[in-house]
């Protein structure tokens, strides 16, 4: 079990950093916070690029910032920055060899990752002889990722690696990272402020804001928490539903998910039969009514109960926390958040514990909303 304890305290410019967390997950942990919340500083501190701060980094029981500070080049930590930082005087192949030649003595529990395997799985065969200036953004990123992995780190730090990529590339790389993580048991700390990326890649999430730790936990729990909703802002507020694929309609390209006994039809094919899928539903895409209306409104009709109503005093909106009916276990429904106008709320005369019907149009669910397991 890899463990990473991080504690950072101090002033960075006019920014006060005070962060402490024990990263226990062997999977992919997303460090999420708004711009300027200190995410990159935490990554830099773990990588060993900070002085003048009160830092404690303990990786697998070894104190990296102890009396004898372990310099960055001796740490078994692979850091990849937002800019791929390929060395432009070296070809792609030489860039990869730069890492291979400098592999640190490594903990026995890890398997060495072979260059040839990695080149294959990241589609780098045709790029090997080229220089970085002749590569596209996506190609650079793949090379940089391969290079970081080839330094055989015990822990991988990725600082917003995909912010410049288009969606097609993203999905591919996310699949690679998840498979890589599972296969090699090398934990990944992944920094992003993209909600799409989070719901697709994260096993666990650590939330920070203004240099401070806010909350942490499993993805679905955090994504549905108040802390998270507060950070992302109301407009982007969303909830994550989990279910398995129960039906695939090839003719219309639709997939039906079984959410604790209720059906949710989503576009595309997020998974094959019986696969477990997470899907993110934006609060503003949900239509709710106290009475059942005709089914042409939307493809999906779910049933639930109002748990809580929060009326925003300064805006036109209200937020409803809804617990979905669970046909298997009555007390354990999944949570869904809806955002409607307060005007509509009063017109419908909604109150706590009231049974409501929830309509979700499949068209509001896009490819980025899925998380595969």
């Amino acid at each position, binding site marked *: 079990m890899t463990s990473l304890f991080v504690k950072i305290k101090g002033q960075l410019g006019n920014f006060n950093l005070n962060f402490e967390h024990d990263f226990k997950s062997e999977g992919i942990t997303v460090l999420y916070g708004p711009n300027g919340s200190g995410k990159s500083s935490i990554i*830099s501190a773990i*990588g*060993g*690029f900070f002085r003048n701060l009160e830092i404690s980094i303990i990786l697998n029981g070894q104190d990296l910032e102890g009396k004898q500070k372990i*310099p*960055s*080049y*001796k*740490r078994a*930590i*692979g*850091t*990849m*920055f937002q*800019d791929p*930082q390929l*060395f*432009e*005087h070296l070809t792609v192949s030489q860039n990869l060899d*730069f*890492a291979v030649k*400098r*592999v*640190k003595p490594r903990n026995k529990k890890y398997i060495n990752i072979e260059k040839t395997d990695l080149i294959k799985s990241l589609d780098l065969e045709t790029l090997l002889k080229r220089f970085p200036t002749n590569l596209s953004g996506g190609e650079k990123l793949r090379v940089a990722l391969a*290079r*970081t992995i080839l*330094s055989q780190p015990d822990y991988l730090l990725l600082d917003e690696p995909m912010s410049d990529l288009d969606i097609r590339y993203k999905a591919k790389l996310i699949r690679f990272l998840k498979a890589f993580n599972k296969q090699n048991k090398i934990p990944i700390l992944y920094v992003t402020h993209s909600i799409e990326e989070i719901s697709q890649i994260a096993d666990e999430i650590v939330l920070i804001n203004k240099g401070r730790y806010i909350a942490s936990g499993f993805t679905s729990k955090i994504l549905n928490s108040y802390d998270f909703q507060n950070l992302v802002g109301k407009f982007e507020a969303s909830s994550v539903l989990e279910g398995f694929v129960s039906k695939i309609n090839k003719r219309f390209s639709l997939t039906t998910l079984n959410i604790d006994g209720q059906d949710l039809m989503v576009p595309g094919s997020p998974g094959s039969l019986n696969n477990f899928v997470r899907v993110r539903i934006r609060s503003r895409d949900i239509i709710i009514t106290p009475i059942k209306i005709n089914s042409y409104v939307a493809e999906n009709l779910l049933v639930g109960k109002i748990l809580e109503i929060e009326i925003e005093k300064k805006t036109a909106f209200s937020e409803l926390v809804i617990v979905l009916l669970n046909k298997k276990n009555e007390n354990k429904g999944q949570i869904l958040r809806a955002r409607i106008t307060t005007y509509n709320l009063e017109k419908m005369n909604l109150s706590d514990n009231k049974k409501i019907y929830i309509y979700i149009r499949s068209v509001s669910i896009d490819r980025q909303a899925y998380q595969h397991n």
Partner: protein
Amino acid sequence: MEILNLSHSDIIALLVTLKLALTTCICLAIIGTPIAYFLAFSSSKGKSIIESIVTLPLVLPPTVIGFYLIIFFSPDTKLGQFFILLTGEQLVFSFYGLVLASIIYSLPFWVQPLQSSFENIGKQTIQTSNSLGAGPFDTFFNVILPLCRRGFLTSFILSFAHTMGEFGIVLMVGGGIHGKTKVIAISIYDHVEQLSFAKAHYLAGGMLVISFIILLCLYLSNKNISVRVK
């Protein structure tokens, strides 16, 4: 011995000039490179002070620097005495005194292009190299040096050309002793004083052509030269 209408003493002066420029560049590589590195990556408060000191020779009249250097190099000072102890010679009017003066005078021409070249590759490139397991020296020789080779070339050529073209300080500190500290610039001055314009033409014209060719090569190979006065 006469080559291309150059007198023996002119050829000697040419050789002294080339030796001086080359020695100065080698010394600058050793002294100026760490300064440029520090200025590019440090965020310490002392940075501006050092930056100002390094740039001073660009704005001061050469006679001011020459004057202070003569005082510094005189046998009455510790430096002067130490040099006499070391070589039995005095530092003023010696070739090494000239080298020392040229290092100071050409320092901004070495430091500034290199500094901006270092700044261009940025901190994160170095951190990335560190993260891949390369220590400071490894990173310097295998990442920074090759990435900044144009910066080094620019620094070398500018410092070399500038040292070759120096007059005021060289005259004050070196005294223009034949075979020792007399460089081309002083030879030209001497020829003009003696009204031997033909000889002066050969040297001056030669310098003009050489300097032009050097700068032309530099600008053709590298469009991002920057010598800044802050």
